[in-house]
């Protein structure tokens, strides 16, 4: 039987494969999720750093303005020149970064001047403010005297505008980084994992037994994953397919051989059976029908004769003094005598006649649609041929033997075979008694001289 390709996976099965979530997407989502959290935290840290450094910068600027105003403030406070103090405070509040100016005497808790920018929050200076406080020290010949304390402050809100751009940049960079990471990772993940996997899966799904070709990826994908596990996977899969295919071919070959073997054996068996049947109806020594064969043929001939009411003749033959031949010359000589008689029967009888060795040196010849005269003529031809035919022994000697024959006839073919055989034997007995080497007819209605 030729190996017929089995169908590949059907649509439903293929769909099951196709609808699986790509491992790369899952890997991607998880890795990227973690990265996003990480990036957010990092960005927040950076934003905080920007904020605090901006705050420090503001504080430093405030401290820088201390240097500008310190001496003048000390002078004005020393002189208690309120006009000057007020002018200085107004000057200070005009400085862009300064939103609150407060000059007071910590000893007496008196506030000399407190100015706020209109934009500044109304809340008191506190955590929301970046404040720079410094003692106002008046230097004089006798040393220095602290005459008050000043506070220059910027509201925390004032810090925001100057870091807006930095923060926007940070956030934008984080977003761009994330996007770039996304695209790069996606590109490589698809190229290095998803595509080879998808292609291998597709190829594997398309594998049909009997038409199995090695699976592989597209050239670009193959180059991309050269030397990776995908190649190993592909090779392992192909080795598996190869093994399965080879086993399948071997199996097909073996089943073919087996079928052939069975057919041969069956044929041989039939021949043997036929031979066996033939053997059962044939006498192996003379190759004439044996008794069983004779009876089969005779039954058919008799039945036909009875149907058509044709005459049927039967002649019995028996070798004269066969025992003596055996005794004098051995069984081999006996066998040759029997074979010679069989030859004579074969040659002398007609095509429709059936000759048989019924056992020992006893032979019979059935002659369908034959009259007594015709039968007697055939029988006589047999007797005469046998009597005149020398039998060559193995020793090279030639001997001669004779045969006695008894003829019976069923004129309308209605007689039973056994009856016919009995009548022929009776006639044979008469021929033996009459001196052998002659033909006698029975029953009485037909007599031959």
């Amino acid at each position, binding site marked *: 039987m030729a190996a017929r390709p089995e169908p590949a996976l059907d649509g439903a099965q293929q769909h099951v494969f196709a609808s699986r979530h790509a491992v790369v997407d899952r890997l991607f989502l998880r890795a990227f999720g973690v990265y996003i959290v990480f990036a957010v935290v990092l960005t927040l840290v950076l934003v905080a750093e920007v904020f605090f450094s901006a705050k420090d910068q503001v504080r430093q600027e405030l401290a820088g303005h201390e240097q500008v105003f310190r001496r003048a403030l000390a*002078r004005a406070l*020393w*002189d*208690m*020149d309120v006009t000057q103090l007020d002018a200085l405070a107004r000057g200070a509040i005009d400085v862009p970064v300064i939103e609150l100016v407060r000059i007071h005497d910590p000893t007496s808790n008196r506030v000399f001047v407190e100015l706020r920018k209109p934009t500044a929050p109304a809340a008191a200076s506190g955590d929301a403010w970046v404040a720079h406080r410094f003692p106002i020290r008046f230097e*004089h*010949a*006798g040393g220095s*005297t602290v005459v008050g304390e000043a506070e220059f402050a910027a509201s925390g809100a004032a810090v925001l505008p100057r870091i807006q751009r930095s923060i926007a940049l940070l956030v934008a960079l984080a977003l761009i980084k994330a996007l770039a990471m996304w695209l790069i990772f996606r590109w490589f993940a698809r190229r290095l994992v998803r595509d080879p996997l998808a292609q291998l899966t597709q190829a594997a799904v398309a594998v049909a037994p009997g038409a199995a070709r090695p699976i592989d990826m597209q050239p670009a994908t193959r180059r991309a994953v050269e030397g990776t596990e995908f190649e190993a996977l592909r090779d392992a899969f192909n080795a598996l397919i190869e093994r399965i295919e080879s086993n399948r071919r071997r199996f097909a070959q073996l089943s073919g051989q087996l079928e052939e073997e069975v057919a041969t054996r069956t044929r041989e068996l039939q021949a043997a059976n036929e031979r066996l049947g033939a053997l059962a109806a044939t006498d192996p020594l003379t190759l004439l029908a044996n008794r069983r064969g004779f009876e089969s043929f005779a039954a058919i001939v008799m039945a036909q004769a009875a149907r058509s009411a044709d005459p049927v003749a039967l002649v019995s033959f028996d070798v004269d003094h066969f025992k003596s031949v055996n005794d004098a010359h051995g069984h081999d000589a006996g066998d040759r005598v029997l074979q010679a008689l069989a030859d004579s029967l074969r040659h002398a009888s007609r095509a429709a006649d059936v000759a048989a060795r019924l056992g020992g040196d006893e032979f019979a010849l059935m002659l369908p649609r034959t009259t007594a005269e015709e039968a007697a003529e055939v029988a006589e031809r047999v007797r005469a041929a046998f009597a005149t035919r020398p039998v060559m022994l193995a020793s090279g000697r030639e001997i001669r033997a004779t045969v006695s024959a008894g003829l019976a006839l069923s004129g309308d073919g209605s007689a039973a075979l056994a009856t016919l055989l009995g009548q022929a034997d009776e006639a044979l007995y008469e021929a033996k008694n009459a001196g052998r080497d002659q033909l006698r007819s029975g029953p009485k209605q037909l007599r031959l001289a």
Partner: protein
Amino acid sequence: MLRRALAAAALLAAALGADAAGHVVRLSYETKANPPRYLGEGTTIDPQRPGLTIELLRLVEPRVGVRFEFVRVPWARSMYLLETNQVDGVFHGSWVAERERFAAYPMKDGRPDASRSIFTQSYYLYARKGTRLAWNGERLATEGPIGTTRGYSVAKRLRTLGANVEEENDLPSSLRKVLAGRLEAYAELENMAAAEIARHPEEMRDLVKLQPALRTEPYYLLLSKGFVAREPALAERIWSAIGEALRSAEYRELERKYGSAT
């Protein structure tokens, strides 16, 4: 720290009714020279010749059993320190009703007790020669602004007279402003102005002192409200001792020492 401990010990001694020696009273006076009342500019005090008032107060110390500590700050600052009880006393101040809010004067029958003042001094107007300012002791006619030292009570008087007053921090530069025409005149205590003019006779020769005096007042040792509230008896004793010391032989010695001009 040591001083604070000493002060505490002195307070304890005073509370026990013992001699109040060592009780520290902090006094401040101006950074300008007011010869001979106090000499030298700035915050430094010459221990040899600090000035007549300082030496007068040294005479008071043993009489009352206190020790005075002196600091020099600008006048307006002195007023501020007195108001906020950061000093116990300031000299010299004339009586001004507004000052009663934060300063205590030696009083008698509801009026400032001139007998316990330190001295009497006068304010004059100093102007450039040829000034168009007119002052007859009653009325003041001026177009330009008149300067005076920040916090001086004379500013109020000048305003009452209808002047446009500019309070200044520094006497020499104020006098130069008068010479330059930026101030029409400068109202200053006679002694102070004279000392400054004497220091720069060439530069200041075009300055004239306008008669009569703008104001002549007794000048007191002002004590802080806080101090008086804390030590009312001591305050009275200090003021009284000033009057006594002024009449003492030691003070006449001092007047001789300082030449007691003006």
